[in-house]
C-alpha cells in the first residue's frame, strides 16, 4: 500500500515537472527576441526597459538555470507579472480561479442529478423502449458542443423568456446565494451536457453487469422490491468506474470552461486566458496554462489514489 502510494506520488512529481518544463519552454520557442514579444506592441522600448526585462527574466542565463529559477519562484507562488496589465499572475489566479472552480463543481452536480436516474433506468429496462430513447438522447447530448448548448440556452432563457441573465457574474461572497445561482446556472447547465451523457452511459453499462450478479438474484428470490434492490444492492457497486470518471471529467472541466466563460462573459480563469492570448500577454498565458495543467494532474492523481482506497483488489495488486 505504502509502496504504491509512494510510486504514485513520485509519478505525480515527475509529471508536474514535465508539464511545467513544457509550459516554460513554450515561451523560449517564441520566434525573435523574447523581450519584443513580451512587451505589448504600443509599449516604449527604451534600452533601460529592455535591460530591465532581460534582467527580470534572467534571459542571459543558460536555459536550465532560467527554468530552475522560474520553477523556484513558481513553487513559492510567484508566477511572474504581466507586462501588459502589471498584475501579478498569482493575483489573477487567486481572483479568478474560484469562478472556474464553482462552474466545474456546479456542472458536475447538475450532470449527476440527471445522469444517475437516466443510468439506472437504462440498466433496469435494458433494451426496452425507454432505454433506447435515453441512449439516443444521451448520444445527442454528447455530440452538442458546449458553446452551442450555451448559446441556445441564452436564446431560450434570456431572449425568449427573461428568466436568467445571459452575461455577468455575482460572487457568492458579495451577492448571496440566489444571485450567484442565477448567474451560474445557465453556464453550468451548458457545461453539464457532455459529462451527463458520459456518466449515464457508464453507470448504465456497469449496472447492467451488477444486475446479473448472483446476489441480486438472491435478493430477488427473497422477494425484495425492485426499487429497493436497485438502490440498496446494485447502486453502490455500480459506481466504481463512475467515481473515477467524475474525477477525470472534473479535471477536464477546469480547462473546458474556457469557451463557456467567454460566451457568458464570466470573470474566470478561462476568459482571462483568452484575453491574455488576444493581448499576446505571454507571462499570463504561461502562468494560467501551468496552473490549470497542474490542477488537472493533481486532481487525476487524487482520483487515482481514492480508487486505491476504495477498491481492495488494486490496493493489493
Amino acid at each position, binding site marked *: 500500500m505504502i509502496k504504491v502510494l509512494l510510486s*504514485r506520488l513520485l509519478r505525480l512529481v515527475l509529471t508536474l515537472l514535465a508539464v511545467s518544463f513544457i509550459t516554460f519552454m513554450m515561451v523560449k520557442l517564441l520566434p525573435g527576441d523574447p523581450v519584443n514579444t513580451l512587451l505589448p506592441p504600443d509599449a516604449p522600448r527604451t534600452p533601460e526597459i529592455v535591460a530591465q526585462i532581460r534582467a527580470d527574466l534572467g534571459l542571459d542565463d543558460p536555459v536550465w538555470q532560467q527554468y530552475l529559477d522560474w520553477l523556484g519562484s513558481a513553487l513559492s507562488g510567484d508566477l511572474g507579472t504581466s507586462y501588459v496589465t502589471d498584475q501579478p499572475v498569482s493575483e489573477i489566479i487567486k481572483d479568478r480561479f474560484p469562478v472556474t472552480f464553482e462552474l466545474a463543481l456546479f456542472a458536475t452536480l447538475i450532470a449527476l442529478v440527471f445522469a444517475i436516474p437516466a443510468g439506472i433506468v437504462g440498466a433496469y429496462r435494458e433494451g426496452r423502449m425507454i432505454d433506447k430513447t435515453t441512449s439516443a438522447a444521451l448520444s445527442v447530448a454528447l455530440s452538442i458542443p458546449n458553446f452551442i448548448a450555451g448559446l441556445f440556452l441564452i436564446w431560450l432563457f434570456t431572449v425568449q423568456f427573461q428568466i436568467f441573465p445571459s452575461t455577468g457574474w455575482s460572487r457568492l461572497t458579495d451577492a448571496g446565494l440566489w444571485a450567484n445561482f442565477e448567474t451560474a446556472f445557465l453556464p453550468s447547465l451548458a457545461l453539464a451536457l457532455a459529462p451527463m451523457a458520459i456518466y449515464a452511459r457508464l453507470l448504465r453499462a456497469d449496472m447492467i453487469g451488477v444486475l446479473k450478479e448472483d446476489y441480486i438474484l438472491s435478493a430477488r428470490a427473497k422477494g425484495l422490491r425492485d426499487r429497493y434492490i436497485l438502490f440498496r444492492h446494485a447502486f453502490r457497486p455500480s459506481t466504481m468506474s463512475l467515481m473515477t470518471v467524475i474525477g477525470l471529467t472534473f479535471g477536464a472541466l477546469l480547462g473546458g470552461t474556457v469557451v463557456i466563460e467567454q460566451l457568458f462573459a464570466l470573470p474566470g480563469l478561462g476568459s482571462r486566458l483568452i484575453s491574455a492570448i488576444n493581448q499576446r500577454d505571454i507571462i499570463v498565458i504561461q502562468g494560467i496554462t501551468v496552473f490549470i495543467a497542474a490542477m488537472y494532474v493533481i486532481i487525476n492523481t487524487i482520483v487515482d489514489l481514492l480508487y486505491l482506497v476504495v477498491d481492495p483488489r488494486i490496493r493489493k495488486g
Partner: protein
Amino acid sequence: MADTGIVTAGADVAAHEAAIVKQGKVPGRGFWGAIKAAPWSAKLSIFWLSFIIFAAVYAKLNNWFDYSLPLIQDPYYQGNLFGTTRPTESPSKAHWLGTDVLARDTWSRILNGAWVSLVVALASAAFGIVIGGLLGSFVGYVKGRWETSIMAGMDVILAFPALVLLLALVSIWEVRSLAVISLVIGVLSIPAYTRIARANALAISNREFVQAAQAIGTKKSTILLREIVPNVLPALFAYALVQAGFVVVLEGTLSFLGLSVQLPEPTWGNMINEARRDIRQTIMPVFWPSLFLTLTVLSLNQVGDWLQQRAAVRSSAL
C-alpha cells in the same frame, strides 16, 4: 485501467482501451456488406458524412473555379452591397438557408466551413494513424526501455487539458492559417493514437501467428510491418472517427473564440461566433452552422462506435 495510472489517460482513450477487450460477432463481409449490416443510425450517419465530404470538396472546387459552378455562391459575396439581397433573409430558392447579418449566403458559407472541418479532421487522423500508429505498434512490440520513455513522453502531453494546451500553442503562432491549425491539432492527436496502437500491439504480439513468425526467424522489422501494424490498423481507423468528432469540436471551439483560421474565411465556429451578437434579432444564422456541426459530430460518433465494435470483434477473432 487503474493499474496503468489514471493520471494521464483521457476518459475516451480509457474507454477505447477497455473496448478492445469486448467481444461479439461481425456481420457482413466486404465494404458494402458491412454497410448493409450496419444499424440504421450508422447508415444515416454514413450518408450524412458522405454528403459533408462531397459538399466540402465541391465548395473548394467552386472556389478554384471562381464561383462559377452551380448550387453554391461566393461565401464572401455581400448581396446588400453588390446586389439586392437583404440581411437575415429567410430560406428561399436563391438562398437555401437564408442570409446572415451581412447578407451573405448561409448555405455557401456552411459548405466552405465544412472544408475547414474536413481538412482538420483528416490532418489529425493522418498524423495520428501514421506517426502515432507506427510509434505505438513499435513500442508495443519491442517493449523495454523504448516503450517506457516514449509512453512517458506521450503521457506528459496527455496530462494537459487538450483545449488549454491547444490554446497555448496556437497563441504562439503569429499567422493562423488552415495549415498551422491542422498541424498543431495533428501533432496534439499523436499521443492518444500511440496509446491505442500500443495497447493493441501488446495484445497482438502474444498471438500465435506472431510467435510463429518469430520461430521461423523473421526479422523484427518485417514482423512489425507485416504482422503487427496491419492488425493494429482497424482499431486505429475506428478510433479516428471518434477522434475526428472531438477534433471537429476542438476546431469549432477555437474558431468560436476567434483563434482558428482567420476571418473572413468561414468556419462553422466563427459563423456561430459572428452571428451570436445578433441573437436578439434572429437565431437562424446561429442555428444552421450549429446544426451542421452537431450532426457531423453525432454522425462521427455513431460510425466510430459501430466501427469500434467491429474492430474489437475482428481482433478477438484473429
